[in-house]
């Protein structure tokens, strides 16, 4: 008997039973649901505005609530970022709120670390415990430190956490992003400084170097909307879209032309295009002529062999791009390769022009008096390598971890984390890192907490979006910022002085009102009530057309770091290249516990409920592999066992694994599903800059893998016959 069947038989499937059973007429007792109270009249929907927390993009949402339950999330139709739309992740937000595997309240460890034995404690007890640990940090010792690790670089947590750590003498506020693409505000994500956006909608010719703007890059919903307009709306010609990426992502699948260069050589494609534009004098910005000599070595004739893109294609695309009415290049390449993309935009001179790169000039004014929304400049950015180095220097005594799961992102870090004497986790779920914690102080879900988020819509300016509770608390959780405030009060002295707030709510209300006041609504109270109802406020700026005047402004040194070679060395024992990518919904693996997303067929492979290895059918044939065969992907660092998925949209001799599955904790939906490819790469590579690539080999293992697809499984049947 299957597990599921047993469950049904034994009647543990209690929900369905209570929903559907007729015995004893449960309906008769439901009467409390028909009594109105101050908040809800039964049978009437109440929509509450907030901000999506499923990625940093900051889409506005409205949540439909009824009878004290939230039952649908929709995009806020007035929000300038997403204009009513919402992506698959955002739609699944309620499954975070109502997830059966949420941590119900504060706990402390009673067994050995990782034993999973916990004792429920009160909030006061938990905060006291953490405060005592922080007090133990020796302010005089150079290498004694407390650490606050998070993925938030802005917002209430960052504001409070940062101040507390500063006040905590040796405290360090650490931001540790895994995938840099989504909404990260730092330069390497776009090649430009923060607040830069791209006017896709009005562009007529778009080249994307690995920027999966329809799935995961930057602000997917905003750029999807722009893409819709780019493809044609009344009165606009249909834009042409070229995508450069070794694996056909969903974004690539939408391109008019897909170029699949050798992994890691995307920047050479960009430079090759630039070289053609310069040598054929197709550039528009006057300063561009100066690049003539420097680009010589990147001529497509030189690089075609490395990139595996024919020269003629370079020349044709370069001409098309340069001659297009409003060309635009975007990219998601390693920071040191991004200048190649920036260069293309420079050559066609599209800065602050319709359909080009929009670089707001007044962006420093946006934040108004509210500095909490500004990206913090004094945080430490961490990757595994840096962590290991820093670990040698500092004897971290206390590690506080918030919205981040390093043990999953970089499994090798586990041992090092275990050496830290005291770990407090603020996780909402029991993830791999929280399992090692000594104290768990669970945070609210995004629909229960207070926060402010800033984002930059293509319409210009900045939008501040409010995250506010849309429904009463589901568990005995507390917002981390509130916990930190309580902590500061408990610590007293400097810490208490640095954080003179009652609650996160107060900070948010004050910050939001300040912002609104700065941008046109002087009455703080009206400002706040408007904001709470609409969910956002905007600072508006018209983009001023701008042009690069001289070569110096182009920062020509950008090219110096680039080398004319493939990204990976040949390795005779490991003839293939393995890469991991951020899949449509899986993010950094933190959505693996949402059943609606687990059962969402991957748009390209149609696979669900698991992980897989994408292999080109040609390569598979040469390795004697069939679809669904279990294979070991091995690198010099590690190996994973996953089912092979024959995928025509990947370069031969490259294998790709989606990141996000393979949890060893994290609740019933995520645990023990697929494998975590992070172990394939040296820990240094799981840093923030690049989706990792490595030399690899694929060995057939015994047995068939569990590869579940929604669409048909057979390769030959995937093709459209009709």
């Amino acid at each position, binding site marked *: 008997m299957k597990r599921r069947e047993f469950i049904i038989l034994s009647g543990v499937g209690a929900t369905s039973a209570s929903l559907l059973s007729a015995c004893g007429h449960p309906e008769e007792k439901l009467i409390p649901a028909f009594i109105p109270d101050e908040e809800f009249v039964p049978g009437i929907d109440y929509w509450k505005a907030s901000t999506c927390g499923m990625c940093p993009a900051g889409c506005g949402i409205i949540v439909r609530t009824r009878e004290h339950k939230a039952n649908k999330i929709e995009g806020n139709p007035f929000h300038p970022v997403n204009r009513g739309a919402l992506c698959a992740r955002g739609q699944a937000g309620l499954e975070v709120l109502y997830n059966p595997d949420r941590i119900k309240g504060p706990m402390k460890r009673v067994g050995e670390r990782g034993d999973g034995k916990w004792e429920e404690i009160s909030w006061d007890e938990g905060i006291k415990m953490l405060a005592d640990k922080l007090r133990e940090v020796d302010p005089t010792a150079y290498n004694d430190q407390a650490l606050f690790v998070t993925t938030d670089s802005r917002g209430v947590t960052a504001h409070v956490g940062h101040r507390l750590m500063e006040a905590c003498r040796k405290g360090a506020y650490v931001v540790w992003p895994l995938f840099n693409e989504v909404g990260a505000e730092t330069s390497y994500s776009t090649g430009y400084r923060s607040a830069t956006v791209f006017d896709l909608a009005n562009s007529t010719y778009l080249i994307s170097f690995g920027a999966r703007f329809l799935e995961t890059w930057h602000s997917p919903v905003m750029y999807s909307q722009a893409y819709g307009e780019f493809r044609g709306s009344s009165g606009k010609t249909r834009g042409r879209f070229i995508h450069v990426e070794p694996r056909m992502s969903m974004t690539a699948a939408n391109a008019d032309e897909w170029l699949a260069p050798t992994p890691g050589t995307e920047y050479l494609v960009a430079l090759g295009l630039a070289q053609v534009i310069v040598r054929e004098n197709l550039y528009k910005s006057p300063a561009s002529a100066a690049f003539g000599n420097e680009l010589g070595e990147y001529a497509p004739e030189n690089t075609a062999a490395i990139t595996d893109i024919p020269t003629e294609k370079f020349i044709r695309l370069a001409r098309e791009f340069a001659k297009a009415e409003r060309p635009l290049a975007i990219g998601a390449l390693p920071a040191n390769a991004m200048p190649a993309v920036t260069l293309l935009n420079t050559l066609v001179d599209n800065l602050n022009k319709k359909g080009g790169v929009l670089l707001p000039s007044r962006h420093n004014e946006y934040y108004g008096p509210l500095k909490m929304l500004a990206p913090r400049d004094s945080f430490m950015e961490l990757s595994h390598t840096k962590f290991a180095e820093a670990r040698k220097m500092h004897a971290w005594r206390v590690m506080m971890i918030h919205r981040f799961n390093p043990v999953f992102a970089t499994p090798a870090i586990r041992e090092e984390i275990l050496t830290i004497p005291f770990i407090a986790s603020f996780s909402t779920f029991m993830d791999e890192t929280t399992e090692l914690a000594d104290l768990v102080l669970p945070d609210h879900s995004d629909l229960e907490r207070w926060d402010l988020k800033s984002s930059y819509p293509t319409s210009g300016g900045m939008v501040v979006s409010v995250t506010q509770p849309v429904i009463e608390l589901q568990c005995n959780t507390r917002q981390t910022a509130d916990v930190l405030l309580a902590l500061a009060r408990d610590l007293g002295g400097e810490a208490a002085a640095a954080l003179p707030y009652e609650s996160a709510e107060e900070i948010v209300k004050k910050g939001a009102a300040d912002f609104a006041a700065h941008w046109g609504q002087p009455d703080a109270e009206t400002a706040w009530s408007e904001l709470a109802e609409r969910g956002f406020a905007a600072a508006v700026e018209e983009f001023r057309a701008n042009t690069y005047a001289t070569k110096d402004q182009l920062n020509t040194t950008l090219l110096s770091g680039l080398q004319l070679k493939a990204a990976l060395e040949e390795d005779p024992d490991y003839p293939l290249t393995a890469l991991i990518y951020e899949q449509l919904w899986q993010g950094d693996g933190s959505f693996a516990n949402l059943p609606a997303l687990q059962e969402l067929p991957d748009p390209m492979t149609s696979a669900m409920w698991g992980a897989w290895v994408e292999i080109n059918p040609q390569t598979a044939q040469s390795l004697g592999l069939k679809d669904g065969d279990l294979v070991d992907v091995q690198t010099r660092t590690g190996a994973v066992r996953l089912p092979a998925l024959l995928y025509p949209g990947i370069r031969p001799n490259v294998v790709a694994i989606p990141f996000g599955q393979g949890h060893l904790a994290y609740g019933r939906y995520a645990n023990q599903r697929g494998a975590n490819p992070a172990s394939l790469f040296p820990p240094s590579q799981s840093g923030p800059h690049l989706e990792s690539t490595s030399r690899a080999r694929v060995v057939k293992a015994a047995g068939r893998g569990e590869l579940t697809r929604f669409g048909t499984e057979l390769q030959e049947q995937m*093709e459209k016959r009709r």
Partner: protein
Amino acid sequence: MLELEWIASKHAGRVRSQDARAPKYTMADKRPSDSKINSDLLAPVNHPGWGWYATVVVSGLVVLAAVGALGYQFTLGLGVWGINRPVFWALDITNFVFWIGISHAGTLISAILRVTGAEWRRPVTRCAEAITVFALMIGAMFPIIHLGRPWFFYWLVPYPNERGLWPNFRSPLAWDFFAINTYLLGSIIYLYLPLIPDLALLRDKSRGALRRIYGVFSLGWRGTQLQWDRLERAVRVMAVVIIPVAVSVHTIVSWDFAMTIRPMWHSTMFGPYFVAGAIFSGIAALILAMAIIRRVFHLEEYLRPIHFNNLGLLLLTMSLIWFYFTFGEYLTSWYGNEPEEMAVFNSKISGPYAPLFWGTVVCCFAIPAPMLAIKRFRTIKGTMIASALVVIGMWFERFLIIVPTLTHPRFTFNWGSYKPTWVELTLTAGTFGYFVLLYAIFTRLFPIIAVWEYKEGLPLGEHGEPTIVGTPDVEYESA
């Protein structure tokens, strides 16, 4: 005269067990005595033997297993079957079509033989009619148990209700409901009518409660001339009426498929194709049943090689017709070369279903047709082997009509596959067990060869009437 005979048989005295093992004689001999016939033909009723009990126990256990599986399915839902999206029908409907097909053995064959006055039919009819009723009962179960919510099956009945809801008479499934019920009712009547004189015989030969029960069901049969006249007329009318009903039933079953727009279902010839297939599998089932009855109840003198020979010839005819239809069906698909049709076609001819498909062709045509065409092989054993192959082959033929079409929806993205679960397999086994069980019980309660009808066909012996109608048997005995 018949009445006289009847009275004679009534006074023939009690049957003794040793009579069952009476010395052999051929039909060419003079007419066997009434008591001999009675004791031979009533032997299974009176002295079933250990084999009968064993059969009942074994088939009963299989049925119990199937009932258990059914209970499991009703408790949890149809998910315990292997069906999925897009294969929403599989073994359930295979069994349905198969058993409805088997049911054509009886009534249709016996009716045709009666109407055409084929004298050799006499020992065959009862056997055949019983198959019809039981196979139909089993087949008709499936449209109910295959429902997602079987407890609402009565919504197919057009009963007046306050909600003003009626069945959808446009649906072939609603037609099925009426056709099958009509056929079942007709078949029961058609089985029952010729049973009345034999019930009277049993009534007279039994005592106590049994006598009363047989008495009720024999409807006060006294064997008067009037009664005989009426019976004969009723049987004759029923024989004529039941033929179109039988044809319509399987036509409508085929229309369940043909009325859809699915590739390789939507075919105008599905009606005759299914009817032919049904008669084909029905005859095979009849031959198998007869051979087994003949053996276990020692009815060698009654079920003679001539019957197997004749039925074998019928089976050969049907095999040829079946092959003709199949060939025509597939050839037109192939020539049409429509992509959706070809997807299904290829999956059967050379794809994953090819072993089953070619196996079916071998079982239904390649082996039985030549075998039955050669007189030397048209023996009891030969026809039995051919029939067994045909029954198996026709089951798979039904499966192959249903499943490959469903695994290949028009949009290739939705193509699927199907694997049965133990529940479906147990249910399938259960249908066979149930059939055997019902049949065994029937033989215990009623003579499986119509006593009066057999006697009616015999020479009158002392009265000096001409004897056997039809071909003399000797020829076949020696062959």
